[in-house]
């Protein structure tokens, strides 16, 4: 089997890996690069557990081939915190009890961050629509939505002071 040599940037660092042509980016992240923060739920694009940012857009890593990462910039949940300091969204999810089993959480964090990056003041409807591709079996979503709202207002306060 021919392996493909791929060069990309993952969480701001140059990354090189070998993958099989059929391997998804999700498999590469988890099994080859051991970045296991990104989760596998459905493996067919429905649940959003595998959400990563690729060249500035959130995508389901289970529907991207590892080979497609050539030259791309990838952001996974491991790249969201700054060292040991959690991102505001991560703190808000913790204090807002926006997770129970936690398997959906990395996907929600990456997707919510992408939303706040482009819309610092989303309405509840905009948050729910943006996150429609992320499923959670545990929380019932309300606490997730409220944690995103809390982060948004915190960021607005910080930027106005």
């Amino acid at each position, binding site marked *: 089997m021919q392996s493909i040599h791929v060069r990309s940037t993952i969480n701001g660092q140059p990354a090189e890996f070998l993958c099989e042509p059929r391997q998804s980016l999700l498999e590469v992240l988890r099994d080859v690069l051991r970045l296991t923060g990104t989760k596998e739920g459905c493996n067919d694009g429905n649940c959003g557990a595998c959400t990563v940012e690729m060249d500035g857009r959130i995508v389901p890593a289970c*529907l991207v081939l590892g080979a497609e990462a050539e030259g791309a910039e990838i952001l996974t949940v491991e790249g969201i915190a700054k060292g040991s300091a959690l991102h505001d969204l991560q703190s808000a999810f913790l204090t807002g009890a926006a997770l129970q089993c936690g398997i959906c959480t990395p996907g929600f964090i990456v997707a919510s961050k*992408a939303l706040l990056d482009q819309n610092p003041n989303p309405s509840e409807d905009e948050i729910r629509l943006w996150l429609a591709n992320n499923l959670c079996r545990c929380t019932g979503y309300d606490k997730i939505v409220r944690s995103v709202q809390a982060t948004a207002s915190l960021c607005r306060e910080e930027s106005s002071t």
Partner: protein
Amino acid sequence: MHSVQYHRPVTLDECLRLFDRFGKQARALAGGTDLLVQMRAGHCRNGAVVDVKHVPELNELRFGTSDGLTLGAAVPCYRIYGDATVSRAYPGLIDTVSMIGGTQIQGRASVGGNLCNAAPSADAVPALIALRAVCRIASVRGERELPVDQFCIAPGRNAMADNEVLVSLHVPPPPEHSGACYLRFIPRNEMDIAVAGAGVSVTLGNGTFRDGRVALASVAPTPLLVEKAGVALRGQPVEHEVIARAAAAAKAAARPITDMRGTAEYRKHLCEVLTRRALEKAVLRAGGTLA
């Protein structure tokens, strides 16, 4: 055992030569939202995956008031609704690209891919048919054009030969006083497959429908252009009663199956309701008022 190959052509010529070489084994990868699922189901063992996203012609998104829209087959949904000019010119297309999947899927999935996959439920296709979109198809032997309403020939099958590639879609410039709309019914708010869908376009003038087109999703083996609905509209006054006749024609033309998503009877009913509501919305978008 899988022995899939991955190719990443950067010119159309290179891309067409790959399709010519691999024929039936070649599978175009744009957003991968259908292809990767099919690969996992074992559908393209020994296949050659051709990543078409780096071919400039398949990545083009261009609008001109006299040329209309050129939509490269691999352009993902988010780029279409992210383009303010295109959004203003083609609200009926925007309806579909902002409802296919969710944010992550829209970051990958393309209208061209939605069309090539040829699902009866494809949301983008009725809107394209209503807008009179034309496919530009190429192979090493040359190019041809095919109206979108002739592109899907059976569930999961399109009119292209094994060595052909869908390069782009072309939508004529929106006529003055025209409007379009796509509506679908799903039991959830987002992230579902249409039980039925209706894509329409209208052009108004002097209180009458100068033109009208209606196409349906999920109620036939392929997306369905309802010629009789257009006939019911053309030349008639912009009135609720005329819209009701077009909606009845859509209901009559639908030949749905009963499956887990809905009964045939329910789907026929939906065709009437969705066509009526989509036409009402298209009239408003065209700047008209309904008598």
